[in-house]
C-alpha cells in the first residue's frame, strides 16, 4: 500500500506541505493522541517528490526537520512505518529528514533547543539548498511544563527558527486543565504554570493558519469511534498573503484508528 492511500481523503488537503511562512497547529489530549496526525504529516511531506498535489509544482523537493521532546527516533521510525508505510530511516540517510532529539539529548534550556535545531537547519540547507523545509515540533510544550522557559521565550525562539525555514508545524496538548486559565476573568487562582501553558497554546493558535484538534467523543468512549477531529481557522489564515489562496475550509469529522494503524475519517452519522 502506498503512503498516499494511508492518508484519509478528508484530511489530505491539510496534511501536506503548507504555504510559505505558515504555522500549523495540531492538538491532542491525554485520551486522544495526535501521533497519528504527526506521522501522517511527516510521511506526506517525505513521500512524493515532484508531486503537484503536495505543493511542489516547481520541481523542488521537500525536507523535514522533526524535533521531538517526548519520543526518540526509534519510536517514530517504527510508528511511521507501521501506520503509513514510509521508512524514515531511508529519508534520514538521504538527508531529507533530520531528526532532532530533545528527548534523550541533554537539551534542558531553550537556548540549547534553539541551537540544536539551528544546526540541523543549517546542515539540511547546505545539503539540499533548493528544498522546502518543514519544521515539525512534537510537544514543545514540554519545555513550558518543565518550567525551563517562559511562553515568551519559547515563542521568540520559535519565530527565529520559523523565519529560517519554509513553514512549521507544532503538535501540543490541549487538555482542558492546560487551557482553563485562558478564559478565566481572574487569573489569581491559577498557578503561574497554568497561566504559561494556556498562554502558550493560545498564542500558537493565534499565529496558526489552521488548528487541527483531536478530542474524545462528547458522549463517551465508543468501539467504532476513536475521537473527533476538527479543523478550524487559526488567527493567521491568510489575511496578509500577497496572493489570494482562499481560506481554510473548516470541518469536523469522526475518526477511527484501526488496529493495523490505519485511520478512517468519516462524517457524523456515517458508518466507518
Amino acid at each position, binding site marked *: 500500500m502506498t503512503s498516499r492511500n494511508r492518508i484519509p481523503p478528508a484530511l489530505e488537503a491539510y496534511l501536506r506541505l503548507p504555504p510559505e511562512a505558515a504555522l500549523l497547529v495540531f492538538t491532542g489530549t491525554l485520551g486522544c493522541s495526535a501521533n497519528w496526525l504527526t506521522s501522517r504529516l511527516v510521511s506526506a511531506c517525505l513521500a512524493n517528490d515532484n508531486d503537484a498535489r503536495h505543493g511542489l509544482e516547481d520541481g523542488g523537493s521537500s525536507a523535514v526537520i522533526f524535533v521531538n521532546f517526548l519520543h526518540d527516533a526509534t519510536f517514530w521510525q517504527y510508528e511511521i512505518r507501521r501506520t503509513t508505510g514510509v521508512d524514515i530511516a531511508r529519508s534520514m540517510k538521504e538527508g531529507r529528514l533530520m531528526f532532532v532529539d530533545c528527548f534523550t539529548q541533554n537539551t534542558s534550556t531553550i537556548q540549547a533547543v534553539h541551537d540544536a535545531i539551528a544546526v540541523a537547519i543549517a546542515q539540511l540547507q547546505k545539503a539540499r539548498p533548493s528544498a522546502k523545509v518543514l519544521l515539525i515540533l512534537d510537544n514543545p510544550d514540554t519545555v513550558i511544563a518543565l518550567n525551563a522557559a517562559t511562553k515568551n521565550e519559547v*515563542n521568540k525562539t520559535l*519565530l527565529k527558527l520559523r*523565519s529560517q525555514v519554509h513553514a512549521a508545524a507544532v503538535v501540543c496538548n490541549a*487538555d*482542558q486543565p492546560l487551557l482553563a486559565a485562558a478564559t478565566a476573568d481572574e487569573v489569581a487562582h491559577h498557578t503561574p504554570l497554568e*497561566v504559561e501553558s494556556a498562554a502558550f497554546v*493560545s*498564542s500558537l493558535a493565534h499565529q496558526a493558519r489552521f488548528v487541527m484538534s483531536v*478530542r474524545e467523543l462528547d458522549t463517551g468512549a465508543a468501539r467504532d469511534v476513536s475521537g473527533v477531529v*476538527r479543523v478550524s481557522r487559526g488567527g493567521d489564515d491568510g489575511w496578509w498573503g500577497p496572493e489570494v489562496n482562499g481560506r481554510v475550509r473548516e470541518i469536523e469529522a469522526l475518526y477511527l484508528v484501526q488496529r493495523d494503524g490505519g485511520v478512517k475519517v468519516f462524517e457524523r452519522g456515517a458508518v466507518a
Partner: protein
Amino acid sequence: MPSTNLQHRRTHNLLLINKLLNQRDASSPFTLVFDNLEQSGKGIIAEYLRRAKVAKVKTVFVSFETLGQLQNVDVYIQTWKYQSVAAWQKEVAFHTRPPPPSTTMLATPANAQKTLLILDSLNSLPASTTPLPTFLISLLSPTTSLLSVYHLDIPSSLPPPYHPSLLTTLKFLATTILTPHSLHHVLERKAARDRSLPEPLFGLAEAVHGLVVAGRPSGGAGVKINDADGGVVIEMEHRRRSGRGVREWFFLPDSLGTVSTFAVGGAGKTSNVTLLEDHPLYRSPSDEGAVGGGGADDELISTFELNLSEKQRRDREGVVLPYYDAQRADGAGPGEGGRILYDMGAEDDFDEEEDEI
C-alpha cells in the same frame, strides 16, 4: 421612531468608522483591537493597511508574532531578531520620529507625512523592562497614530500587588476599542436571544476537553453561512475628546475578494463597512417593517381570517346604532323622560302583569 433613529446612526456612525479606519484628522491616536481565537483582529489590521496605502500613509509594522510577506507595509520590524527590547524600540523610534525641523518649517500639519504604527500583539510586551504605558505614550506624536492588537485569551501573569492589570491599563488608555466578533457566532447568539434562551459559548469558553478553536465547521447545527459571506463583525467603542463615548456594531466584509481591485484601481475607495443591523442575515423580519418606513401591509399572522371583505365593510358602516337616537340634544328624542324603548319581537311572550311599560 425607530427608523429615523437608525437612519441617524447609519449616517453618523458610518462616517465615524470610516474616519477611524482612514485615520483622518488624528481622530484616534491610540486604537486597540481586542480579539480572541474565535475571531482574529488581523482582518481589521489588513483593512487599516489597505486604506493607509490608498491615503499614502507610512505604515510601520512591529511584529511579535506575524511572519511572512505582508501587503501594504512600508517598514516591517521583526522584534525577535533583536537582542534586547531596547534595540527594537530604538528602531521603532527611528522610523516614527517626526521629520527634521527644516522640513517641518515648510510642511504644514495638513501635509506632514503621517505614520501608522502597528503592534501586532501587546501580550508579549509586559515581559519587557519599561512600563507599558510609558512606552506606548512615547511612541505617539501628532503625526503618528498607534494601532495595536491585544489577544484576550492569552493570559498574562499577575501584576505586582496594588497595580492594575495590563488589560485595565490598556482599556483606560485607548481612544478607540474595536472588538471583532465572528458573524456566525453573533447570529447564533442573536437567534438564542430571540428565543429567550441562554446565549451559547464558543471555543475556549465552552470548556470542552481538547477544543481550542470552535470555528464554524460546516457540520455544525444552527445558522448556515457560506464562506462567501465571511467577514468580521466589529464592536466599536470610541471616546470623543469631550469624553462622550460612542458605541456601535458594524460589519466589515471579507476583503480577500477585493484585494486585487484595490491594487489595480487605487482610486477605488469603497466604504464597504455597513451597520450590523443592515446585514441581511442579522436583520429580523420584524425590523424589516421598521426599516421600510412602516408600510400599509402590517398584517397579523394568524390562522383566523380577521380581515373584512369590501361588502362586509359597507354593511358594517350602514348599521345605525340605537343610542345615536338617544343622544339627540334637542330633547325630541325618544329617550326623553327615561322611558324604556323596546320593540317586541315575534317570539316575545308579552306578560301583562309583569312587563308593564
